[in-house]
């Protein structure tokens, strides 16, 4: 199972693309995904925070991931 992860703001700058595909065997939970992304892109660990969104909702570390999910990294927001 592979996963596509959408990237916004500074996470897109760090990774260098707006969508990254993690090939199989891909992480199976939000926590594993974050750990894998930080391993590949250590600069993600320097951010004030980095959340993961699954299907437009903030997700907790133990949430399972599926190939059909819309997944995104969410660096610190700054609207308004």
């Amino acid at each position, binding site marked *: 199972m592979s996963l596509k992860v*959408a990237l*916004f*703001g*500074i996470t897109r*700058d760090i990774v260098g693309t707006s969508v990254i595909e993690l090939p199989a065997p891909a992480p199976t939970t939000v926590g594993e995904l974050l750990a894998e992304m930080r391993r590949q892109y250590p600069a993600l660990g*320097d*951010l*004030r925070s980095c959340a993961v*969104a699954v299907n*437009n*909702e*903030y997700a907790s570390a133990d949430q399972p991931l599926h190939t059909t999910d*819309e997944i*995104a990294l*969410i*660096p*610190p*927001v*700054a*609207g*308004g």
Partner: protein
Amino acid sequence: MIPHLAITDQPIDIAAALAAVQTDTAGAVNSFIGTVRNQSGGRPVRRLHYESYDSMALTQLGHVIAQAYEKWPMLQEVAVVHRKGTLELGDVAVVVAVATPHRAESFAACQFIIDTLKQVVTIWKREEYEDGTEWVAAHP
């Protein structure tokens, strides 16, 4: 009661946002208008670039407004319009407008919506300076 929500790359029409919340059952319309200012922490800012994850931003904005309706059941109408793309100094970045029967709740609900928007809505801001750019709030 259906909130008027939008994320747009076009200039925000403040009058249209205020008109969207007008209702004969409300005696108070309160609004917050966020604009682009010329400095940030003392550093001169030339312009701003906003990026949005639209589908999630609208989903989260819907949650914020649902919370506002729970906290202020008398809340009548809500409009939130956020700009994205490149904004020049003085441009309107966001408008929040609420309508309630009386004024006290209108101030409180309007402040709650803009404060919570800033915490959860997936919009990012990159400030442009004379010598470069920086994503706001990205680093500790």
